[in-house]
């Protein structure tokens, strides 16, 4: 059996909600030894965010926390105290990576900024993830996931297509859940992996500055570049596919993509070659696109008599790209999801056994291992503090009473 990808990589994570914890999770799920540092008693704010098992708020039953913190160890530490800071420094002394999401400057004031850490451990890779990065006029601006998402470029153009046609006067829309936060975490994880890769040849660790806004801007790079180059501003009104897009069907919605000739042919075939598709103005690709409103209307008429799964499988058999709009439950239950092994069971001492999504990648040599569920608050204090740092039992009691751990 091969070594896990990041086996032997020591990571300390000071992160909350979704972005920094997801970065830590991505490394932990690939075998890194990630110790999550949480404030005593309260923990990561994700613990107070739903959804909860049975809708009962409980710091060990938050789906967000459980998902974003798999395979990590967890300790509690108040590093605003002198002894707490000392413990954190001891943890960081031999760490490879620090992931943190504090407001820029906050750790410097505490004597835990990059320069101080580098002096102690030049090999350390410090990954800082904040809404606007470590520099610039907005670096200390306050931003919740809603604000960051709308400052990233994609928000302004959501929803396009049918969503805009139906609600042209509504405000721009946020992508569901913590999309922008996860993207920032994923973007940070690339940098962590690359910095680890290059560390021996570069000769040192480094400070990685991740702006959530820029992580989102990069996703929209093609659309965003059109303004400086062409003066073109994409809005919800112009954001639409040539033929097809999101369309209603018998039992919900499907996405129909028929912009290539062979895709259009496939669609015509499964619609049973209705007479209108044989008319010259619809046969010709250019005039079809010019008449897309009518064409889309005619497709929808046909779609409404069919279920999304019927259309999906039939169209795909005819080389036409159609996708059913699945609920999460349908996505989880789909035969494809099962066959790929995207879901995995993981036992947790409080919420029990649950099925978790894993990741989009499947490595032939180093399969993802879900060895441990998200840590309970302070679950690994003893393991980390006494076994790794050699803090005595008596001292642990003192530190606990003093509110340090």
């Amino acid at each position, binding site marked *: 059996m091969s*070594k896990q990808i*990041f086996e032997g990589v020591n990571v300390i994570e000071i992160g909350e909600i979704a972005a920094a914890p997801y970065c830590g999770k991505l490394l932990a799920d690939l075998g890194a030894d990630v110790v999550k540092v949480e404030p005593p008693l309260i923990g990561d704010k994700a613990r107070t965010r739903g959804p909860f098992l049975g809708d009962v708020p409980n710091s060990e039953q938050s789906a967000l926390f459980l*998902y974003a913190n798999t395979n990590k160890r967890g300790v509690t530490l108040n590093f605003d105290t002198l002894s707490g800071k000392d413990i954190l420094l001891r943890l960081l002394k031999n760490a490879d990576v620090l992931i943190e999401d504090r407001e820029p400057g906050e750790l410097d004031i505490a004597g835990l900024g990059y320069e101080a850490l580098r002096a102690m451990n030049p090999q350390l890779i410090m990954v800082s993830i904040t809404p*606007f990065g470590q520099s610039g006029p907005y670096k200390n*601006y306050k931003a919740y996931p*809603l604000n*960051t*998402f*709308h400052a990233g*470029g994609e*928000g302004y153009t959501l*929803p396009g*297509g*049918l969503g805009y046609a139906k609600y042209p006067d509504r*405000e721009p*829309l*946020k992508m*569901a*859940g913590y999309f922008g936060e996860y993207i920032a975490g994923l973007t940070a994880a*690339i940098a962590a*992996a690359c*910095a680890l*890769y290059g560390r*021996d040849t*570069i000769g040192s*660790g480094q*400070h*990685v*500055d*991740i702006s959530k806004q820029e*992580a989102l*801007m*990069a996703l*929209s*790079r*093609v659309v965003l*570049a*059109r*303004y400086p180059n062409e003066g073109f501003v994409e809005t919800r009104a112009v954001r639409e*596919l040539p033929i097809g897009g999101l369309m209603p069907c018998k039992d919900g*919605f*499907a*996405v129909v993509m028929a912009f290539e000739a062979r895709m259009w042919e496939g669609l015509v075939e499964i619609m049973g070659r209705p007479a209108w598709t044989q008319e010259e103005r619809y046969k010709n690709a250019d005039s079809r696109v010019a008449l897309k409103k009518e064409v889309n209307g005619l497709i929808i008429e046909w779609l409404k008599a069919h279920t999304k799964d019927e259309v999906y499988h039939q169209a*795909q058999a005819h080389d036409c*790209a*159609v*996708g059913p709009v*699945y609920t999460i439950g349908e*996505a*989880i239950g789909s035969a*494809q999801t099962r066959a*790929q092994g*995207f879901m995995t069971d993981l036992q947790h001492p409080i*919420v029990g056994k*649950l099925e*978790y*999504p894993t990741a*989009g990648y*499947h*490595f032939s040599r180093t399969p993802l291992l879900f060895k441990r569920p998200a840590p309970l608050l302070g679950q690994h204090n003893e393991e980390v503090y006494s076994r790794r740092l050699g803090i005595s039992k008596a001292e642990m009691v003192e530190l606990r009473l003093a509110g340090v751990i």
Partner: protein
Amino acid sequence: MTPMPKYPLSGVRILDFSTQMACPYGATLLALMGAEVIKVESRRYLDSGRRPPSRSVDPKVINMVPRFNDNNLGKLSITVDLTNPDAREIVNGLLRIADVAMANMRPGKMDKLGLGYADMRREKPDIIMLSLSSMGNQGPERQYAGYAAIFAALSGLSDATGYVGGIPTEGRATIDATAATTVAFAVAAALYHRKQTGEGQHINLSARESVGALLGEMYLDYAMNGRNPTRKGNEDDVMAPHNVYPCVDKESWVSIAVGSEREWQAFCRVLGRPEWITDARFADPHVRWKNRAALDSAVAEWTRTRKPYDVMHALQNAGVAALPSMSSKDLFTDPHSQSRGIYKEFQHKALGKRTVIGPQWKLSATSLDTAKPAPLFGEHNELVFEELLGMRRETVQEKEQSKAIY
């Protein structure tokens, strides 16, 4: 003497056999980290990413597609027809000097070309191969075609995104870019592993799953409570105000989110409505959230006579989260993104002056001046065939004649 490595992935060579957006952009991210990426393409099956709307394959036109430039920054391009048996020795030579190969053909297609993982390993035992497909290379739907909107639909993201009581939302190019970002992480991780162990491997990456992985808490909510998410628009489960509000100009909007009591009080003062602090409808977070519709219309009344940036400055000065919903114009002209230097400018041989979004990371030890133009079609044939592979000029000409180089 070997020069000092400049970038994290200096010395890594990637063969990019991929087309369209998700996989090519994944390779671009690695180029932005300093890898040398060689795009292997052919006019026999031209990358549709190079195709302008006119569908022309005119060599001048195919070098002038802005979208292709933005998705293929800093690569080299060579023209090799993989379906031509006479191209085999070139391909084998490339594999022997490569660290990574990336492809996004439908599962099985690379094997048919003699370029499956097993074939590649014969030439380069420790190669890392990444195969990106819509659905993954296992399972009943593995041959299905997909584009961004389809990954978003299948993963549950489309269904979860939308206005309260509204319809699902169509996913677009950002979803391709999401798969690409996942691709880059997976390859970087495999590179690290190879450096430690000497072992390459094959990565099967499913675009639809790469989107599903960003919906983890919703998947777990289903596992815990058997429940699908409801569409929440810009609303939050706890916070109010928490929405995007109209401003004075057409299509100008500002996002505002109020978390703590301190923020709420500051918010009320900035709006000139200190009486809201004790108003029975808004006095604590719970009633505020329950009465969020009334609160949202009152807030909109205030924003509607103002500009997004004025709202932002007024509220941020008081420690309240507010930002414009930024268009491409706002972002380019914004003092923050300008000061961060995220936009990069260069001369593209066919397009002229181009501005692009540069690398999305800032590294203290390695300045990432890696945002370079995308290659012209076959721009680096000579460099790669003659300098890297050591082919003689005559051999190259023979291969051109047999259309192996094409």
